[in-house]
């Protein structure tokens, strides 16, 4: 960059002056190259606030005819490269060529943390048992705030604007990757394929996107076409102590030859033990792309095929008692079997997908069609027990608190003994489980078994997109898409732990799960439940965009229709009439409107307003209260309502650039469905807790600024302060099996409506509502760089137990009433916050470039000071009436205390990357 400026200024002095007085316009030629010296084609060079656009001459050469005697801002944009802006740019007085080098997106020799670095946030993901809430942020962007949110805030489970990741839409090859089941994009679907998925267009917030209507939180479009990737061989090897210990990635992108280009990638990731104990990790993936451009370049076809496999052990949220006894890295879900570590809760995700794209690319009009097929499985194993002791070492009866909270009086001796015994044997004893099964061979029911909760789905998608540019300023685009998603859900016997077979019955109610199948099931058989959902989504959107000198505007409209029905494949004894065969179909139609206006004061400041209003269908996982057992729709299921506005102020001064954002949003008809054992004033049972009609408000600010102290040193300051609260009192209902054997049955109908939940003004447990980051970056001219950031995160709330906020909580219990309820002190039910935390992150590296071969090394250290912090928590819902709650809390060490997830301590990530250009690609001459 510095060299280029020197060349440019020298040229200016030597060449411009003599011809300055003679001409009014001058031709300026600019050659664009990448770091290897290869030409960049298809770039857009323009002069800000004017209509001057460069003509492409081919081979990376662009030319302007510009008036002389003026100062301009030159903007250079090329797909796959970081845009460049040259301020105070003078048209040279002589026809001359300038050489400009662009940096590729994801190039680690730059200032901002790289895509590789962002993927280290997988640790935060692995710490949670389910899909990544922030996975969509895994990309490098130009936005300082988004970069901080992805790299610095995400380990603390930060959620921008307090929004769930389902509000972010991700498209790969034009196909929507958000799952219909829970609405979220699953980052592991393309895990390990970083080198080919670097090409991402990201629109943050309510902005228009060239790809689709998009989501409230943002839209990511990943383009895997080989013609847009940097050709050559890329290799990356990483070492880490995060969720995986090593990662090897290899990819090759071919140059375009006779219209054909292709790319291949493969990767391997693994760890014997992840960051948490007992979370072994194994993942591999592969991808192939083939692209063909017709002779005229108008017809383009692209086929992409990829496979990803990911298997990892899971960990648990822990109560403070367990944390004190066993430490932050403790994980109860593993043990030893014949001397080897064996995890009891494994999650296996595997998918293969094929996408076929065909595009007709005209001058002002394009039409593209994408067809895809996906087959995916999500298998989760767990240890099941039947009329046998709970095998978890931290079952509440094994903890010291059990003896402190004993109803017959606290026993401190036994409490101490229990603590010592737990320290001596803190993990699952698999050998003991096999022994128990061996001793029970004569019984009809094995005490222990490894079972799986499996999901197998297929997805057929088709998208037809069109794009039309009727004039310079206006663009119209739209699409019609259809997604069919038949999916199977079933329990399965994974390992009988030495046994021969298992009776397929519900151990609590002693009822059969499969009346039409055999009573005794063998290894690999369906077990417990088996049903399928057939879902069809049809969507259409249309968008208008206007770009002008002073103002831009856009308006988009989308409509969606979602249909789903359940089909049971097992008839169970508990719901004989509603468990088997086709159930009722349900359908939701929803619409959304999005609009925005941007006013550009000048090239330095501009202001934008945008708004989104509409409805969206509830995610399929909330349609049914208990789909494993019966075809029963969640009551009062309605479309979610969304109203959101935001305003952005953008600044791009020579030294200072950034964005300031104010947002306000309201959601209506949100729902929650949870499963646990509850002891209510009206009885105890294993329940499905359904809360519907929740209304929430999200308001706050987010900002990110970058100040160039010098050409080598930069300062970043970004943050977000928000308030995310419930703003009404939703309705709560409990559903359960009306089991005649249950000693304290709740209601014979199997349903109990508990009225309103006093949640108003409670805060949503959506990560830190206050986050600040101050970073310093240094980039040395000798291609080494260092970035250090200081991050402060706070105002993170614990998820409340809804049952404690219902009227029945203070009611006299129906079973064993004591008439002393009035004397029970009301507990402090105010929502707890997690402690504030300051995290220091450091990343630095160096790169070398020799004869087109590129090597880079970087080391990233997160949480440099090894600070202990909690990332989230939830109140256990078991003690759901006053007497039971107070009794449990009285000792100060409750048996059913709030559980917390822990943040990682000091972690590192060391990466070596090697890039080799293809041997037959010619370098352009200067």
């Amino acid at each position: 960059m510095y060299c280029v400026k020197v060349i440019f200024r020298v040229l200016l002095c030597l060449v411009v002056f003599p011809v300055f007085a003679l001409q009014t316009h001058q031709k300026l030629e600019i050659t664009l190259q990448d770091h290897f010296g290869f030409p960049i084609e298809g770039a857009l060079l323009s002069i800000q606030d004017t209509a001057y656009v460069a003509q492409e001459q081919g081979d990376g050469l662009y030319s302007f005819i510009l008036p002389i005697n003026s100062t301009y801002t030159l903007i250079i944009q090329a797909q796959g490269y970081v845009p460049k802006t040259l301020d105070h740019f003078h048209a040279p007085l002589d026809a001359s060529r300038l050489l400009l080098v662009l940096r590729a997106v994801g190039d680690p020799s730059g200032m901002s943390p790289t895509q590789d670095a962002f993927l280290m946030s997988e640790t935060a993901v692995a710490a949670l048992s389910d899909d990544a809430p922030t996975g969509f942020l895994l990309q490098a962007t130009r936005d300082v705030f988004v970069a901080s949110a992805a790299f610095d805030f995400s380990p603390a489970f930060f959620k921008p604007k307090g929004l769930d990741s389902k509000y972010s839409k991700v498209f790969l090859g034009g196909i929507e990757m958000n799952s219909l089941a829970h609405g979220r994009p699953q980052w592991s679907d393309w895990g390990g394929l970083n080198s080919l998925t670097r090409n991402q267009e990201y629109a943050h917030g309510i902005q228009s996107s060239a790809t689709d209507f998009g989501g409230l939180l943002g839209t990511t479009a990943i383009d895997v076409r080989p013609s847009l990737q940097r050709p050559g061989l890329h290799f990356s090897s990483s070492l880490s102590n995060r969720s995986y210990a090593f990662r090897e990635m290899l990819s090759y992108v071919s140059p375009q030859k006779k219209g054909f280009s292709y790319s291949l990638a493969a990767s391997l990731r693994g760890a014997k033990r992840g960051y948490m104990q007992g979370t072994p990790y194994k993942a591999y993936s592969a991808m192939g792309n083939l692209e063909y451009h017709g002779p005229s370049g108008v017809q383009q076809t692209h086929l992409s095929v990829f496979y990803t496999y990911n298997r990892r052990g899971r960990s648990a949220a822990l109560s403070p008692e367990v944390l004190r006894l066993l430490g932050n890295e403790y994980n109860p879900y593993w043990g030893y079997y014949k001397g080897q570590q064996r995890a009891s809760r494994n999650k296996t995700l595997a998918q293969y997908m094929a996408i076929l794209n065909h595009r007709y690319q005209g001058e002002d009009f394009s039409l593209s069609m994408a067809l895809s097929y996906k087959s995916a499985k999500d298998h989760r194993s767990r240890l099941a027990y039947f009329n046998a002791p709970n095998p978890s070492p931290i079952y509440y009866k094994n903890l010291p608190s059990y003896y402190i909270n004993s109803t017959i009086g606290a026993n401190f001796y036994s409490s101490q003994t229990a603590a010592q015994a737990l320290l001596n044997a803190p993990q699952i004893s698999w050998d003991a489980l096999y022994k128990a099964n061996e001793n029970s061979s004569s019984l009809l029911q094995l005490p222990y078994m490894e079972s799986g909760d499996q999901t197998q789905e297929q997805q057929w998608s088709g998208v037809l997109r069109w794009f039309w540019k009727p004039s310079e300023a206006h663009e119209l685009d739209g699409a019609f898409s259809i997604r069919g998603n038949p999916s199977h859900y079933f329990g399965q016997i994974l390992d009988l732990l030495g046994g021969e077979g298992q009776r397929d019955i519900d151990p609590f109610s002693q009822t059969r799960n499969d009346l039409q199948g055999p009573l005794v099931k063998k290894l690999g058989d369906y077990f417990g439940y088996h049903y399928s959902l057939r879902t069809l989504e049809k969507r259409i959107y249309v968008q208008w965009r206007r770009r002008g000198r002073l103002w831009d505007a856009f308006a988009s409209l989308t409509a969606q229709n979602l249909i789903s029905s359940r089909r049971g494949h097992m008839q169970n004894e508990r719901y004989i009439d509603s468990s088997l065969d086709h159930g009722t179909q349900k359908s939701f139609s929803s619409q959304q409107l999005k609009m925005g206006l941007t006013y550009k004061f000048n090239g330095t400041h501009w202001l934008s307003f945008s708004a989104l209003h509409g409805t969206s269908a509830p995610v399929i996982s909330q349609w049914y209260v208990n789909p494993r057992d019966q075809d029963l729709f969640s009551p009062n299921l309605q479309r979610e309502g969304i109203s959101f506005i935001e305003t952005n102020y953008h600044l791009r001064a020579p030294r200072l650039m950034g964005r300031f954002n104010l947002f306000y949003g309201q959601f209506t008809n949100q729902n929650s469905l949870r499963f646990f054992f509850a002891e209510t004033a009206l009885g105890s049972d294993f329940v499905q807790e359904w809360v519907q009609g929740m209304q929430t408000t999200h308001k706050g600010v987010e900002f990110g600024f970058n100040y160039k102290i010098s050409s080598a040193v930069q300062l970043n300051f970004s943050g977000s302060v928000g308030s995310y609260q419930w703003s009404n009192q939703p309705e709560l209902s409990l559903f359960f099996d009306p089991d005649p054997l249950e000693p304290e049955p709740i209601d014979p109908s199997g349903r109990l409506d508990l009225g309103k939940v006093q949640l108003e003004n409670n805060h949503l447990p959506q990560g830190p509502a206050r986050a600040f980051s101050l970073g310093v970056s240094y980039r040395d001219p000798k291609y080494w760089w260092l970035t250090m950031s200081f991050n402060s995160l706070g105002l993170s709330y614990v998820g409340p137990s809804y049952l404690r906020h219902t009227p029945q909580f203070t009611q006299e219990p129906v079973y064993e009433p004591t008439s002393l309820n009035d004397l029970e002190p009301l507990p402090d039910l105010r929502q707890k916050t997690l402690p504030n935390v300051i995290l220091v992150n450091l990343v630095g590296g160096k790169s070398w470039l020799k004869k087109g071969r590129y090597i880079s090394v970087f080391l990233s250290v997160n949480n440099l000071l090894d600070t202990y912090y909690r990332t989230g928590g939830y109140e256990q819902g078991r003690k759901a009436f006053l007497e039971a709650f107070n009794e449990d809390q009285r000792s100060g060490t409750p048996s059913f205390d709030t559980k917390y997830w822990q943040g990682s301590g000091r972690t590192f990530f060391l990466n070596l990357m090697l890039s080799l250009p293809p041997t037959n690609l010619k370098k352009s001459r200067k």
Partner: protein
Amino acid sequence: MKYVNDLSLRKHLSSQIESFILAAIYHFNLRTLKCWFLCWGCWVFFLVSCTSHNEKSLQDICSNKLDTISFQSLRDSVQNELYRFKTELYLPAYVISSDQFGQFYGRLVLEEPITAKTILGAVLETDMTGTSLWYPSGQKVYVNLKGLYADHKTTGLSIGSVFASFGNLSIGRLPALSAQARLSLSCDPIIQIPPKARLLDKLSDLDLQTLVSIDSLQLDSNLAGQSFAVYEEDSFRAFYDTKGEKIMLRVSGYSDFRDALLPTDWVRITGILGKKRSQYHIEIRGLQDVAPYGM
């Protein structure tokens, strides 16, 4: 080369490393590439296939321990007050109770090996549930007594943890994980424990917490038509022998067979002998312990 100070040494080293890397890159050709891939392949192989060291050796499940103590010695140690074992001593015993059908909650009853002259018994008070899964009736075990408390009460010899009530210590239930750690399985096979045949008028406290069998018992006629136990209540049912001597049958209100009807014919009852105040009672493992006995 002589180095003036650390700084120059570091500078020299870093420039050496940099030169090495640049030289390696400069000389990069296909052969070097193959070599690099071979090294990388070895590195990946090493990472993937290297097995972790066992962080913990497999605990012997089956063993024959030394340093044993007999039931008589245990009884002698206790005498008349709570006693705590300070050394590592093992008590070899056979399990005679079973919670398979819901009886014996919170207890594991142990009997002396048959080789002993007078077979004594003791009860291990514990919070362990599902004891029949690991310690079924007839399984020989070794109980590590170190740190455990023992006492001799009306109900016989008992071992466990301790709890304090009004300043007095009594035997309390041993936490489940602690009990599992103290009970080592013997390598001897599971056997059918022969019960001691007893007559009601010959019962003594030496038989407490041992497996006994009593013939010719008939249910109290007033209890005809009743079930073995009332739900959630520890139930005692009177049985009489031919001489009119009484013994109570103890059944838990949580047992699986509580709703079964009591037998009105003459029966032989096998079970573990206990005592409440001055009345003996017998506690069965399951319905199989109540067998018809022809007169």
